[in-house]
């Protein structure tokens, strides 16, 4: 049964505006939502954006294209390697650079580790919003292992600038392979604990089931992608629909649920952890030897004039870069289509008439990262 309440015609004078301001424990980042409340029901929601706008797309018009790589990591700090991947792929497609095979494998392994790390943080922070204070600590304990592995390879813990146009900046060694395998084994052993403590908990299930129901048609209208779309039953994942890199070589499932509520996207993200582990294992098993940088990458990367596009599957949905170049090495226009922007836009329609606790639940299940909305 849905908890949304119908709008009465002459009730506007009972309403008051509550500002879930830019500083709030459960809007992850600087998101401001103006709630018009009637009692505890949110009748009208208006997200106000722009508190974190840093003009990334304008910066791209002033620097040579390959110098934009650190900025991609700052747009979504949780999925930094995947953003790097999308941008590196964009420039490689534009300039016609072929990357060696070892590079593709390294990119896939590190991207999937990044996806797991992002989902673990979402898991912990979502439960913190709902009032459970310990699962975030357990999730961060697992996440520390990933951060240590990636720090050993890339040198940073969060905002990685590891991929380059034509390859990666540093090679992986045996220590990486052994510690990643150990991590895969460890995380698989932790899933029963998470199921016991969190997923099966009756209080959590009551908070998540039947809240914020989405349909595939609503998702299509707003351009929602990612685990939210997969929670409504549509098995759309860019890694399968338009395979990039070497994802077509791996055998992994796309978890879907049918109901489209918060519990559905919760379970989809939780199951994606297992699928990412499968991809990592298969990639480690078939890791080839070879160079880590393409043969001829010019120092001054002139991009031929034209329009180029590259889409990758970020942890939050479909991430697309669109580059318009006029022949020099500085882009004419770079447009980044981030998934959280479209995911946020369903909030005024889906969360209308919900209790505040449900608004918090629904917004947490969208897995928003505000810096990538504001860019």
């Amino acid at each position, binding site marked *: 049964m849905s908890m949304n309440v119908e709008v009465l015609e002459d009730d506007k004078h009972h309403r008051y505006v509550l500002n879930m301001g830019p500083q709030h424990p459960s809007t992850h980042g600087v998101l401001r939502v103006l709630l018009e409340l009637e009692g505890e029901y949110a009748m009208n929601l208006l997200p106000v954006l722009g508190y974190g706008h840093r003009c990334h797309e304008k910066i791209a018009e002033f620097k040579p294209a390959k*110098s934009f*790589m650190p900025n991609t990591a700052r747009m979504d700090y949780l999925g930094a390697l995947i953003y790097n991947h999308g941008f590196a792929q964009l420039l490689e497609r534009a300039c016609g650079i072929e990357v060696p095979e070892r590079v593709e494998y390294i990119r896939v392994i590190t991207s999937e580790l990044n996806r797991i790390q992002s989902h673990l943080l979402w898991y912990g922070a979502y439960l913190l919003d709902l009032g459970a204070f*310990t699962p975030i600590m357990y999730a961060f304990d697992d996440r520390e292992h990933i951060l240590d592995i990636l720090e050993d390879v*890339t*040198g940073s813990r969060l905002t990685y600038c590891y991929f380059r146009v034509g390859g990666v900046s540093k090679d992986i060694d045996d220590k990486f392979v052994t510690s990643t395998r150990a991590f895969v084994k460890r995380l698989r052993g932790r899933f029963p604990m998470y199921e016991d403590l*969190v997923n099966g908990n*009756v209080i959590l299930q009551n908070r998540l089931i039947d809240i914020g129901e989405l349909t595939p048609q609503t998702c299509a209208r707003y351009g929602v992608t990612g685990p939210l779309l997969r929670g409504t039953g549509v098995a759309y994942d860019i890694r399968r629909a338009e395979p990039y890199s070497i994802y077509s070589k791996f055998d992994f499932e796309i978890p879907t649920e049918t109901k489209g509520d918060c519990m559905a996207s919760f379970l989809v993200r939780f199951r994606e952890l297992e699928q990412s582990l499968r991809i990592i294992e298969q990639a480690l098993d078939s890791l080839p030897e070879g160079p880590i940088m393409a043969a001829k990458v010019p120092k001054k990367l002139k991009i031929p004039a034209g329009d180029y596009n590259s889409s990758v599957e970020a942890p939050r949905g479909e991430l697309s870069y669109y580059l318009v170049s006029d022949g020099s090495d500085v882009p004419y226009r770079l447009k980044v289509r981030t998934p959280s922007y479209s995911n946020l836009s369903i909030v005024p329609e889906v969360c209308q008439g919900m209790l505040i606790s449900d608004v918090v639940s629904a917004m947490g299940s969208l897995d928003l990262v505000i810096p990538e909305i504001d860019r």
Partner: protein
Amino acid sequence: MRSYFSKLFTGAWSLIVGLKVTIKAMFSPIVTCQYPREKLEVTPNYRGHIDLVKFADTGTHKCITCGSCMRECPSDCIVVDGEKREGVKGKALTVFTLNFTKCSLCGACVEVCPTKALDYSDEYELAGFARTDFHYDLLKRVEERE
């Protein structure tokens, strides 16, 4: 009626199962490190701010003042300058400063250097009271390092 009781019992059982997980965690060893009393070992590949490398064979840096790092830097935080000295081939380095407040740790400077004169340092305990605390004079640092 039956779903009333079944919901109650499955709910209560899930709560008890959750309690078992936490009590087990309560008696597990802690996983945090009591910084600053205990410190973790930082990997040698950590990307701190860049430093000029002191080579053992010459006892000094190998920068040839080509200015590639200054040109490659996306954030314009490196200033390299040299002067022509007589008897020395090429330019001699006189100024090499890094404005770490703007650095985005991309690594372009380290990778583009033709003589591999730059490398990342492993300092992570950086705290200061003014922005000028992070304007590093790398030439002075390499000369003072033993």
